[in-house]
């Protein structure tokens, strides 16, 4: 029995309280469980990969705190790296490696004009426990009528995903890429994540 019984009479609280804004679910950055599990599996499988590789695409951005909604995993590497990864993930491969060139859905916006964007890479596709994985070797980008850019190259950052150390395409490179394409909304999202990860006064 209760030690004390007091009337459940509501009482006004005379103290000021701290205003609190609870974020909406869509504002919270979370990597979904299937993509997370696949990322861990891939990270472990490629621990001893000799060629340079890194998670790219939206998964890489979520891992670094950017609020985007990935639906598949992408890895950037070289052509040789793509073949090596295919050997390591052979049981999950659903399409053999080959050169693929295609137009992406979103146009670039340069000097207030829209331009079609094409990408070309030596690509292999996988299904890792229900999650799609695209591995791009020597990815190149072409905007409008300009020439193809050089194959993407980078020095990866590293993130520990549930204890598994994995390479990630740096946000700095992504930000520069998006800026060049005129995708300022994506630049802004990266900026928000970077602000949240940095010391305010230095």
């Amino acid at each position, binding site marked *: *029995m*209760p*030690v*004390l019984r*007091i009337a*459940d*009479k*509501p*009482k*006004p*609280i*005379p*103290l000021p*309280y*701290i*205003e*609190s*804004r*609870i*974020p909406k*679910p869509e504002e*919270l*950055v*979370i*990597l*979904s*469980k299937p*993509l*997370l599990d696949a*990322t861990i599996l891939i990270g472990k499988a490629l621990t001893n990969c000799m060629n340079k590789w890194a998670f790219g695409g939206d998964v890489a951005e*979520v*891992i*670094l*705190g950017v609020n985007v909604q990935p639906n598949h995993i992408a890895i950037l590497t070289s052509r040789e790296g793509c073949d090596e990864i295919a050997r390591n993930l052979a049981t999950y491969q659903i399409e053999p490696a080959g050169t693929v060139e295609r137009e992406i859905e979103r146009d670039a916006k340069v000097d207030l004009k829209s331009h079609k964007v094409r990408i070309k890479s030596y690509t292999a596709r996988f299904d890792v426990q229900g999650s799609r994985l695209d591995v791009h070797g020597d990815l190149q980008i072409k905007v409008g009528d300009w020439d193809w850019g050089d194959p993407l190259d980078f020095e990866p*950052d*590293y*993130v*520990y*995903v*549930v*204890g598994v150390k994995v390479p990630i395409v740096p946000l700095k490179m992504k930000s520069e890429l998006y800026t060049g394409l005129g995708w300022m909304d994506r630049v802004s999202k990266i900026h928000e994540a970077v*602000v*949240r*990860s*940095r*010391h*305010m*006064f*230095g």
Partner: protein
Amino acid sequence: MPTTITEPAADVVILGVGYMSGVIAAELSIPKFNGNKPYKVVAITKGPYWDYVNDFSTTKYDEWGVGLGRKYDSPLPLQSATIRNTPYQFALPVRRYTMPIQYHALGHGVGGAAQHYGGTMGRQGPWGYTQKSSTINRYGQSFLDTVNPHSDLEDWPLTYADYEPYYVDWEKAHGLCGDYNGSATNQPSDTGYPWMSVNYPLPPSPLTPLGQSFQTAAQALGYHPFPHVSALASQPYVNQYGVPVNPCVYDGYCGGPCDYACETGAKANAAYRTIPAAMKSGNFTLVVNSFIFRLDTDPTTGLVTAARYYDPQGNVHIQPGTVFFNGMWGYNMIRIMLLSGIGAPYVWNSDPTLVSGSVGRGLTNGYLPYRGTNVSGTLPNNGGNAYPAGNGSGGSVDIYDLMDDNFDHGPGLSGLNGSPPFIGGAEIGAGGYPGGGPGNITFAGGVSSASMGGTFKATQKDKYLPTKTTLSSTPSAHDLPTTDNYVDLDPHYTDIYGDPLARLTYDWTPNTYNGATFLVKKVKDIFTQMGAQNVTIGSTVAPGAVHNDWWGHHLRGGCRIGADQSTSVWNKWNQCWSPVSKPVFNIFGAGEITNTSGDNVPSGTHVAGPQSYRAAEGIKQYLLQMTHGLLT
């Protein structure tokens, strides 16, 4: 006009939203972790939601406001506690913030006390779970009686091996940094150093020069040093719930006086590790700025039916639920049980054989005596002081060799070196990034020559310039439960709503002092090996010479899990089994206050963490079975 509002019923109602509650929220609300059940979870906290950028990034550097004004902390006028050293004294309430660390005032809002802690962690070893039986088996009952008069020491309901998988889950969820625990073999048979089935998910912070010096000296003396275990992410991290974590930026304002919140979310707590995942699930409702004052029970079944709380406007809300989780900090967990008539209240008696009840029983303090036996020295030109930009707990090195039963405690045996008998010991370490802020205001303890003027300036110079490093240690063996230290309801003082405050009856136990007498000599040897000068043992404090007069506590026990229903509140599933007229099987609880016994691993939080996963598992089973009985 304030009114009474009945909320929609939930499957799980969580009381308080701190470290342990975050685990329950994530594990029960996310279908991938709860067996794809559409459980609805509601969590209620008296404080706000904290966002590390919006709430802390530009305001945490207010040393006066944070350190003294306690602007992030629980307002004392709302609720406090009373304290006394013995049952024969009149307990007085804490009315003002008097010390840099005010644990009773922390724990306000989402994340709880962990918003303000130093981030130090460390597993409790196998001996910690069997202290009573191991001591009796090795040294005899009379030895324990001598070491701990009026002993109320109990074994835990499970062993370290049982908790080990839950430790792993806890460490993954919060991104703990470390590199095993000093064991040469890391085998389950290596009982002295907690073996680990999986290493910590993040590497330790880089060692400071002082940490390296300690490491070298400890190794030379035959100890097994290892990097301090920290909850401040040393690297970018993603936990098992998919929550990305920013790494520590070593901003200089961190754990010094345990005041400074983290502005990047690197310092682990529920707000930045588990609650976001629960919120994302769509099955979780967070209620903030709401003060829980009662749990309703059904007079027929005895089960808890609802939690009652005040909102900021003074309305009373009734939150019905199927299962309840008590995740309130410290004595608040005990207080809500006593106010609601749940569990058997502890009733003290001067004759230890005549005490009864369990709610409030077994209170211990995991912190060293405020003015205990100490040893100090000066290390010239070490350079450790060139790293003031701290992260609170990282960068240092520890040894477990002088804790638990890792050396012979028997009377007359060599290990004790002529010291009074005690059990356990201490984790000894050195070299952490200071991280207390440039000023590190300490006026709260009273203005002195050390806190202002020339002496203060000289201290600051030593702290930031490569001149000299002061080494100091106040080791103690851990505090043991006795029948004389406990929590009950104060008969005189109330909170702002008129309900009795928690009353703490507490003083240090002899074990803490006697261990210190032994340990300072060992620490002196290490300091000397490091090359420190003028290494001296400042004073040797005998039991009873100094009483507890400090309001800051690392409270443990008081609402214990256990294997004996008459002395513990929770069973091995952290499910309430304290005998009352009606069983109250649908409330679970976990926290430092549920630790069966203390130990001198610095973080009772780390030891409590596995209990939260155990409780989550228990709640899942309870919801599946719905038999309203004890889980087996």
